[in-house]
């Protein structure tokens, strides 16, 4: 037993040692252009771009770069955070005048595709998390402006461009419904500040430039996506869910205590001595429960 | 006045198989009563009902005119057939425990009995032998000035010398105005101390009972011999 434990301990320790990420400085080759528009890392060129159109789900630790003599003449310090798939890189520069500069870079190999996407020069886009496609050019028709309210919440669906078999996804905008019409909000047109992630909500009461979706193909795809067609309608619609929820609440907090109240009162009448007191106490608690719940329920109904 | 009144008690562990079936007995105050019968006839069940450890399915039990409950526990001193202490405790802890919960506990009496047996008060129960543990238990039970003592098989599983000691302790330390009910199947050892006896059979049926001396005189036999005849297989 002792031998087995010591073997297991040794393996665990060895694994931990090798698994511990190294926070040492990297000696891998890192180079950068004078205007920071390019970075070279491990023989790959990364081009600076606006990276706010996609999400990084990976976690990576920043690495301190060991600067060469020539590099030290341009900057004081540099750290890079290379993410997995080598698609994306973040760099922090500390200039000699103690100014900090933050840049995001995309692997040159992907850059062209990415730029095409965020400039709208692509055709097929996807509805997030669904296997449904739109023609982007169809969505970019009928430009208009609508007033959105801060208090409104919209069911919004991200429109993504995917390349390399979905390995890379770029957020281009969202589709949403208002006053029975579908609209497409393009980030490039409306402004990058509208990107908030999956739970999209309008920022402030203002006019927003959007595109009204009118073509048949896009509309039928949206109907399919948003569950309006019979094939994809969810088991319960919102009203049914509310009804079930309301019924469950009334049943658990109202009907069950009421039933038990009647039972406890009957038992109290039939019992003698100590059990009568117990059942009467339980009856009081039931009454209190029903009373509090009734007040709450009628207040929020 | 009767210290114990049992009226039409029925107790079943399994359905349609009563251990006690409509049993009724009375025990007067100041008597030592032997509840004698074969194994499994319901003696321990009856004792536990009186002690309040079990609830009867029907019938009533009164101790000192009160229904069995918290108040009767204060006047009943119960010795089960097995040790019932936390063995991690020391003897002195038990003395303190009994003093706290039983107002009729005579700690001086208990300490004297313990010292007579050279039992160290600071000894942990787990360090004592089986026989000594049982003696400690008996001392604690008999050091109370209870009105009713229930001794369930007090001499089973101990050597003859210990049996004599136990019976001697019972006689010399109980409250003479109280009653003792002793259950046992070792009749020979016990019969000399009994005032009254009850022969109990399966289902809680009382086959025979009465004054021990008078019965011995009447039949010119010991209770043990009478028992063997009554319960002949």
């Amino acid at each position, binding site marked *: 037993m002792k031998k087995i434990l010591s073997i297991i301990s040794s393996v665990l320790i060895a694994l931990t040692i090798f698994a*511990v990420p190294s926070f040492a400085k990297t000696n891998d080759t890192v180079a950068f252009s004078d205007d920071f528009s390019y970075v070279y890392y491990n023989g790959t060129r990364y081009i600076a771009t606006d990276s706010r159109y996609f999400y990084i789900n990976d976690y990576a630790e920043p690495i301190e770069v060991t600067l060469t003599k020539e590099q030290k003449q341009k900057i004081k310090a540099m750290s890079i955070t290379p993410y997995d798939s080598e698609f994306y890189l973040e760099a922090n520069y500390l200039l000699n005048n103690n100014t900090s500069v933050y840049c995001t870079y995309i692997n040159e190999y992907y850059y062209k595709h990415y730029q095409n996407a965020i400039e709208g020069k692509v055709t097929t886009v996807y509805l997030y998390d669904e296997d449904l496609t739109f023609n982007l050019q169809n969505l970019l028709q009928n430009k208009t402006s609508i007033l959105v309210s801060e208090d409104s919440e919209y069911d919004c669906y991200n429109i993504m461009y995917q390349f390399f078999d979905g390995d890379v996804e770029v957020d281009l905008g969202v589709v949403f419904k208002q006053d029975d019409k579908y609209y497409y909000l393009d980030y490039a047109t409306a402004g990058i500040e509208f990107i908030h992630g999956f739970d999209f909500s309008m920022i402030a009461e203002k006019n927003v430039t959007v595109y009204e979706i009118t073509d048949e193909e896009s509309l039928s795809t949206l109907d399919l996506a948003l569950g309006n067609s019979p094939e994809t309608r969810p088991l319960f619609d919102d009203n049914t869910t509310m009804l079930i929820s309301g019924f469950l609440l009334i049943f658990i907090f109202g009907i069950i205590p009421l039933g038990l109240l009647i039972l406890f009162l009957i038992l109290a009448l039939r019992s003698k001595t100590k059990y009568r007191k117990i059942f009467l106490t339980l009856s009081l608690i*039931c009454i209190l429960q029903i009373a509090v719940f009734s007040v709450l329920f009628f207040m929020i109904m | 006045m009767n210290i114990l009144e049992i009226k039409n008690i029925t107790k079943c562990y399994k359905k349609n198989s009563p251990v006690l079936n409509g049993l009724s007995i009375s025990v007067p105050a100041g008597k030592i009563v032997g509840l004698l019968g074969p194994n499994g006839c319901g003696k321990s069940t009856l004792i536990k009902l009186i002690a309040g450890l079990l609830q009867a399915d029907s019938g009533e039990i009164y101790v000192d005119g009160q229904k069995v409950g918290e108040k009767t526990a204060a006047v009943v001193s119960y010795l089960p057939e097995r040790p019932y202490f936390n063995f991690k405790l020391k003897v002195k802890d038990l003395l303190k425990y009994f003093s*706290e919960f039983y107002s009729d506990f005579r700690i001086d009496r208990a300490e004297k009995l313990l010292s007579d047996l050279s039992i160290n008060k600071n000894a942990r129960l787990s360090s004592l032998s089986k026989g000594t543990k049982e003696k400690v238990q008996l001392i604690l039970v008999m050091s109370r000035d209870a009105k009713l003592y229930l001794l369930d098989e007090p001499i089973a599983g101990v050597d003859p010398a210990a049996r004599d000691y136990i019976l001697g302790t019972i006689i010399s330390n109980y409250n003479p105005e109280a009653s003792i009910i002793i259950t046992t199947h070792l009749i020979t050892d016990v019969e000399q101390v009994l005032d009254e006896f009850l022969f109990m059979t399966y289902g809680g049926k009382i086959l025979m009972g009465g004054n021990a001396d008078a019965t011995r005189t009447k039949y010119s036999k010991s209770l043990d011999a009478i028992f063997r005849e009554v319960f002949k297989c």
Partner: protein
Amino acid sequence: MLGKLLKHDFKALFKYWWIAAIISLGLGVAAGFSIPIAISDNNIPPILRASTIIAIFVAIMGIGVFSAFSVVMIFIRFYKNLFTDEGYLTFTLPVKRASILNSKLISAVLFTIATTFIIFAAILTALLIGFSKDIFTVRFLNEIHDSVLEIYSHTGAYIYIYIIAAVLLYISITTISTLFLFNCITFASTITKKARVITAIAIYYVANSVFTSIFQILFVFSGSYISDKMDTLSENMYNPITSLILLCVFVFTVFIIGILYTIEYYMLDRKLNLL
């Protein structure tokens, strides 16, 4: 008599608990001193870093074991004192059955609360020591201050109601879980003569799974319903309604406690089955 029973129950439960509590706090301190080394950017020898990571892991495990230890102690105390030979002494004491149950319940609930407090203190100690550089800074303390002010700006004086409600709910939920454990042990002891402990654990596991599933479903449906209804309320009704919801939940927990207590009392009073 309840006081005397409580005294003995506390003594029994806390006999070894205080040692485990000190060890847990010690593990928290050890973890606290290990954290800066484990997450340091500097050149730390791999063996030292690995040792600190293992130390943190052991500390977390140790604190988890301490938590399980308290449940086990409550289980053992309740079972041993009532359903083994010790039960012959306990149930023949001149005390009410309710007092015996109340003593076990009160001591177990207080014991659980103390354990939670120690676990919380151990974790907090580890974080305070481990991240002292980041925590004991003006910036961080200002952030805490701003967060508190922001919460207060939304809740106003209702914050005191919420705090009291949280404490009461914590106590009532702890009481429910303790009573539930007692119910399982007592029920197992009434239905079986042998293997009572295993039967009790099995009943606890099954019943716990069933009730947890039911409450999860209830929580999901009721949560979404109430959340939707709350959105329709005006802002000045938000806090009163939330307080009312908390009151309703608290009364419901008292209702559950009443039922579980009655079941337990009935089983101890009428269905006791000592061997």
